[in-house]
């Protein structure tokens, strides 16, 4: 499975924000996009996930394994998304959050519960299912958020400054946790960050983007 962006240009009010002629991410590879804030990194991720604000105009296409998904609505793309904040749903338990991610095609309730329990176990969070997410530590929440994303069986992964809010001690372990899984699942991942250490740990190609206009703020 690979992710390919071709001939992409995103403009806002006639002003070009993002331009990518071709970018291919191989299965199990993490491509890092680096640039200062305002360089359109987040706009790129929003477009990839299908949630670009209608104020923007975009040309170009994104394919997953050769299949064009540019016209699909966000929920049909199966492109996972991980933010700087974990954004666990505060009204659901940890298990409830994971069940939200698990595809509905897995019908049997016991099987669903078992999948969730196994995922938690493997992330050293065994028994955390009934917990209120608000009572978890930052590192635990970050891991639950990743598990939720992966349980949805995404065909590609987008990481939006995923380690920015974690303290330094946790950051290293979380990077390992994420990248190891990307490799194991063999899905392409695209990460935007402004932390060079993230790029180094990802050990993949790095794409530097500049602000669209030098004085564009």
């Amino acid at each position, binding site marked *: 499975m690979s992710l390919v962006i071709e001939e992409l240009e995103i403009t806002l009010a006639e002003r070009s924000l993002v331009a990518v002629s071709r970018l291919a991410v191989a299965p199990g590879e993490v491509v890092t996009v680096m640039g200062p804030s305002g360089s359109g990194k987040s706009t790129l991720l*929003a477009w990839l*996930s*299908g*949630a670009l*604000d*209608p*104020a923007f105009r975009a040309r170009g296409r994104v394919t997953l394994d050769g299949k064009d998904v540019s016209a699909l*609505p*966000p*929920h*049909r*793309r*199966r*492109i*996972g*998304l991980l*933010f700087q*904040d974990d*954004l666990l*749903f*505060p*009204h659901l*338990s940890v298990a409830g959050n994971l069940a*939200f*991610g698990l*595809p509905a095609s897995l019908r049997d309730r016991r099987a669903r519960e078992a999948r969730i329990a196994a995922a938690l176990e493997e992330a050293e969070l065994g028994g955390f299912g009934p917990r*209120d*997410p*608000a*009572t978890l530590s930052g590192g635990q929440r970050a891991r639950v958020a990743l598990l*939720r*994303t992966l349980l*949805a069986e*995404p065909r590609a992964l*987008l990481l939006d400054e995923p380690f920015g809010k974690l303290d330094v001690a946790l950051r290293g372990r979380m990077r390992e946790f994420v990248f190891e899984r990307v490799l194991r699942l063999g899905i392409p991942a695209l990460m935007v960050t402004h932390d060079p250490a993230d790029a180094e740990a990802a050990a993949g190609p790095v794409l530097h983007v500049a602000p669209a206009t030098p004085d564009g703020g």
Partner: protein
Amino acid sequence: MLKAAPWLTAGLFLGPIAAGLAGTLLPAFGWLPALGGTTLSLEPWRALLDAPGLGRAVLLTLGTGFAATILSFLLVIAFCAATQGSPLARRAQAALAPLLATPHAALAIGFAFLVAPSGWIARALSPWATGWDRPPDWATVNDPWGIALVAGLTLKEVPYLLLMAFAGLGQVRAAEGMRAAAALGYGPVTGWLKVVLPQLYPQLRLPLYAVLVFSLSVVDVALILGPGAPPTLSALVLRWFADRELTMWFPAAAGALLLLLVVLGAILLWRLGERVAAVLGRRWIAAGGRGGGGVVLGLAAPALMGLLLAANAAALIVLLVWSFAGPWRFPEALPAAFTLATWQAQVPAIAVPATATLAVALAATGLALLLTLACLEAEQRHGLRPGRRALLLIWLPLLLPQIAFLFGWQVALVRLDLDGTMGAVVWTHLLFVLPYVFLSLADPWRALDPRYARGAAALGAGPWRVFLTVKCRLLLRPLLVAAAVGFAVSVGLYLPTLFAGAGRIATLTTEAVTLAAGADRRILGAYAALQALMPLAAYALAVALPTWLHRDRRGMRPA
């Protein structure tokens, strides 16, 4: 389909108002074929101008309307300036919601029970302080100057303006401004007036206009507390519309139009006042006076506000006391005995309007919620950007005197063969319920972190699943509060029920206002108490339900 929601809402909204204004305008110039008015003329205006007491009614309207609005505004400003950042402000905020829920009519009746010559205050002070063993012959209610009307309106408008002020303060970063002003040597009150008020005022403008319009054109409170001969213009116009002599509709329509002009003129005048105040204020700020510690205001404003909130609460309590009162002779502070007799006797009679009140309020609130959610969801899914004009549109029914379009709307309802039906009453209530539901829900809805919805979509959840299981659940509390607000508004509506119901659909409000003209205080107390308790119960439910549902979710507790 969802994309059409804003248009559908605007149509449901503007249709009745446009039809209503036209249906008032034409009879005001003699055109109402159903009554034989088939030529345009100025005759209705001549009849209006010849009506005894018209001049005084207009002056009364202007005097009471401006007095109530200015008093409420000054009290709210003084309180906010005196308590910025103190725990008092937060405590006041918690007390506001139940007070806001109280219908105008119930509050006015309770207030009359307090201040009437034989009211609770006189009883509490007699005979030991006053020497009275019978009620004094004073006109403390329905006084010819409208003082009781101003007081009753102020009592009701202050909690509303205060809530709006608190909401506005959250957006202007008042605390930072105050810190900067203090560092430059400004006293707390002066600093607040010079730094925070100029930023806060734009947020208060529309609520203030609504208060001004309401105070100038209110009917139910004016009937209960206002003068009778002559009454305020709105009450006078209603009297003519209700006249057995149907030809009175012509001067009544002209009077309704005159009220509209009075209200528009008053808004223009207020706007002019804003300009003058802005010029003077800028000069005052530029002069650089630092002001003192604000000790006097710091004590007086919270004391006044406390008194006002206490009067609000006492007005509710006295309704209940009367409804359970046995024999209660004048100077006694409390009834000689409490009894269920009034309630037992009234249950069969009160059940009918109570059921109608509940049915109309639930239907209007449900519709308003549906339309509001459809508009907000359409806005997010299609990236619509509602502008200032859309906001003004939502405020429109609150910025027009009700009587100016309700009569015409009733005529249109007759044409549609809908007058006097539940559907007509619900639709008419919707005009007033929808703005409050929308204004109360729109901010929290738009403020929800959009990444929750994006994240859910990335997990494979379609738009409707995201709407139901993410947005509605995360926003359950504001959703239910908005519903409670809408419910309270509907329960309190008097004129819309009267006109759309064509006298055939009675609610607790219309019954209470009718009874206020002279029924036994026990019976009146029962109707008004029930009218006040219904919205209170809705609020309690709106607060309790999410708290119970989310008892194990720390992240769902209100900040």
